[in-house]
């Protein structure tokens, strides 16, 4: 941006509006793909492949669209939508009512899981600090706190984890 390499998160955050973004990784690939001819692209598999290479860069092409599309393309490995096991923190978010629109949920789950791994019995202040980089607009965070407390308690439960920690 303006001649300086910058993190793609600035693009996602809307900070590059009106600035000159010179190099967009992935877009060049896509232009090559386009130049290579549209015949292959029409058959469906080729645009998929092109997108794979473009979005895999996670570069400053960066509309968060690429990331969004990856979500739809690859369900988390090992997760079956129907009836398979959820991680304790996932189940706790459902049980505690910490999910409303759910747009913020994946990010909060990752942050919460990392917190519990690092601090198995976090205080409320610990939870707030660990999740402070994630915005939620629906819940007022109270039920998210509940969910993390619940997940931590369940993780501590010997019957659930097979280990006793004191």
């Amino acid at each position, binding site marked *: 941006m303006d001649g300086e390499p910058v993190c793609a998160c600035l693009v996602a955050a*809307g900070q590059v509006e009106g600035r000159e973004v010179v190099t967009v990784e992935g877009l060049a690939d896509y232009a090559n793909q386009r130049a290579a001819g549209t015949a292959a692209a029409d058959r469906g598999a080729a645009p998929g492949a092109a997108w*794979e290479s473009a979005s895999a860069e996670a570069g400053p092409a960066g509309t968060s669209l690429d990331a969004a599309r990856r979500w739809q*393309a690859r369900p988390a490995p090992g997760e079956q939508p129907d009836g398979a096991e959820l991680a304790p923190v996932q189940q706790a978010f459902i049980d505690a*009512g910490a999910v*409303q*629109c759910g*747009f913020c949920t994946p990010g909060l789950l990752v942050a919460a899981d990392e917190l519990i791994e690092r601090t198995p019995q976090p205080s409320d202040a610990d939870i707030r*600090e660990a999740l402070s980089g994630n915005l939620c*607009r629906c819940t*007022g965070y109270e039920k998210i706190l509940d969910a993390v407390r619940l997940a931590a308690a369940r993780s501590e439960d010997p019957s659930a984890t097979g280990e006793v920690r004191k």
Partner: protein
Amino acid sequence: MTPHAEPRGAEPRTTENRAPEGAARPAPAGTPPRAQTAPSRVPTSLEQGSATRGGIGESTLRPDGTLKVTGEFAYASDMWHEDMIWGYTLRSPHAHAEIVSIDVSEALRQAGVHTVLTHADLPSDTTHYGLEMQDTPVLANDRVRHHGEPVALVAADHPETARRAAAKIRVEYAVLPVVHDEESATAQDAPLLHPGRADHHAEHVPHPNIVHRQPIVRGDVAAGRDRADVIVSGDYEVGMQDQAFLGPESGLAVPSEDGGVDLYVATQWLHADLRQIAPVLGLPEDRVRMTLSGVGGAFGGREDLSMQIHACLLALRTGRPVKIVYNRFESFFGHVHRHPARLHYEHGATRDGRLTHMTCRIVLDGGAYASSSPAVVGNAASLAAGPYVIDDVRVEALALYTNNPPCGAMRGFGAVQACFAYEAQMDKLAAELGLDPVEFRQRNAMSQGSVLPTGQRVDAPAPVAEILRRVRAMPMPPERQWESAEPTGGASPGTAVDVRALPGGLSNTTHGEDVVRGVGYAVGIKNVGFSEGFDDYSTARVQLQVIGGEPVALVHTAMAEVGQGGVTVQAQIARTELGVTRVSIQPADTQVGSAGSTSASRQTYVTGGAVKHVCELVRERVLELGRARFGTYHPAWAQAELLLEGGKVVTDGGEALASLADVLEDETIDLESEWRHRPTEAFDLVTGQGQGHVQYSFAAHRAVVEVDTALGLVKVVELACAQDVGKAINPDAVIGQIQGGSTQGLGLAVMEEIVVDPDSKVRNPSFTDYLIPTILDTPTIPVDVLELADEHAPYGLRGAGEAPTLSSTPAVLAAIRQATGLDLPRVPVRPEHLTGTDSGTDAG
């Protein structure tokens, strides 16, 4: 195989339950032609079985919870279609300018660009749209009226290509002077935003730059003044708040073989979108088929159109599916905001603490286009007195046309602005009279039977004094809570300071020096449902059939699930009414009648009411079948009171007569019907009198804050709420609504504002600069839910979503005022307002 090539393969659930192909669903009359290929990530039919009854009053879990915690829930921005191209919107950099010329030739020459559209390319004579008044151009014609107004559209094979091509469109603007406040908008020689207005408000407004004006005159204010021992007045100001939903505007338009279009979109109100979209496309409504895709929050910001028409225009022009997704920056320009307001209030009271009169003037800035400004004006006027009994009242509320960003619906809808001001007035009066602020409010609180300034009698419980009592009775958070908090290091509790619990937090700006606590109270009144004579109905379609020996109910409505949990509630109601555990909620689309908007706290009431109503019709049909088949075997079939419970027809004494499986056999009951609440009427344009509202909702807050008076930093320590919800259909979801709404009110109190320059340009369209509360900014929110049934509403319920957003803001302000002794007539409060270092450019 790449996932993209076969997206449906990766999603058995989506495919299996997709409504249009579902074997269980009979095709509606005149099955619409399908799009060439079905897009992936179309909305999922949500199915949920329950071991327990899972009916109303239980905190059943969300049917979409698993999809949302596994990242598989399909938001509008996740959609994908083979051959899809991308749309991009070129927006005006000026707040007010004449468009001299537009040259799109260079943009069209860019490789990968499919088309570029401007106003001149619109296919129909209808080129404007709008919720209440059709004053908004789909693309600017000869003039732009606000910063960020759409001017041209580009479709290209890559979003970045589209963005770059848009940058090559040459638009020559001749900048015009702006009107940006009441003075400049209503000046004699003010430029008119919409010359030659022909709308139904044009005749009665005092100036063409006033969208709508609603006075209310009741009683005799002069006599009230004479009775008053004290009179207090004040000027207040509310900044422009944004809904800031996290899922940006997005949608996918797919052209179909019949020349129509299928639109998958995140919205709040499918049928209102449809009504605005179809005429602009020059298509009959049945050739524009809309399906709700995953919505990442709304809060009013999706009631107006954003990219809907744009995507359809590009799709119809190119013959290709077109996706548009806004980024955060564009989202701030892509939807309307909460009206900023300037309010002047005067109240009088007798020495014994009785209100004598109230006058107020509320000026709302509607921005460049009307959106829902007229309805916001009606709300602000009719609720301007708050939940208090005041006999002598004079109100004037109006909304302006200016060159500021357009404003419309946001949670609280006109009542938020008034509540901030009248609650500040209540504290001033109590102080003037030497009365406790809660007790003063309780003395004047309305109750069932009270008459509002509109002349409307409140004919349901109005426990205003009681919720104030309850919120005050909650235990207080400990003093110097930063010391009682768990120490982070090895120091012993009670002596250590946890800076995270102090104003400034981990910035480590204080260890308690200069920190002062304050406590404040506030209460508010919000109407539920659409008002002023709007035909506010909803439609539900319910099927009951036996699948695999088990009765299954399918519920289909056009209600937009935006996160609130309406789908959970619909399933609960169907279980309660039909006595089945398996309920499938079909994706919301326009194949069923309108459900109205997911706003005004109305969906549980109105669409919940519609589902209940149609379930009752289905039950009647079941009983008819049962009587025909088994009536001769048991005299109880002739009884009037038969219920459906646990998959059986039972008597009111609990005796099972037959299973639903036996009654239905292979028959499918399939009924669709509308349901409406009591009618309302418009307020008189001169006196403001009228039975304007359906129902009222009340919440009270107590805020406890700690203020670092040296630095002007505020920490809200606790925000307690008591609210009457009539009947909590899903208690956990109700608490979630109250906590979420309270937090948005907190945001308006201390941080949230779209800053607009005097030249009407938006200065902070990003989450870096427009702040919403993080988990560190948000306190504990204990909630006390009261359930006093409203006999007029289904199950006695009361719309719950908005009331907590009203009183939260003034409670926080009251607490900061108590801590600091400052007047603070404006929200959001910023540090410079607390330290006296405000440069004074825009604050009182």
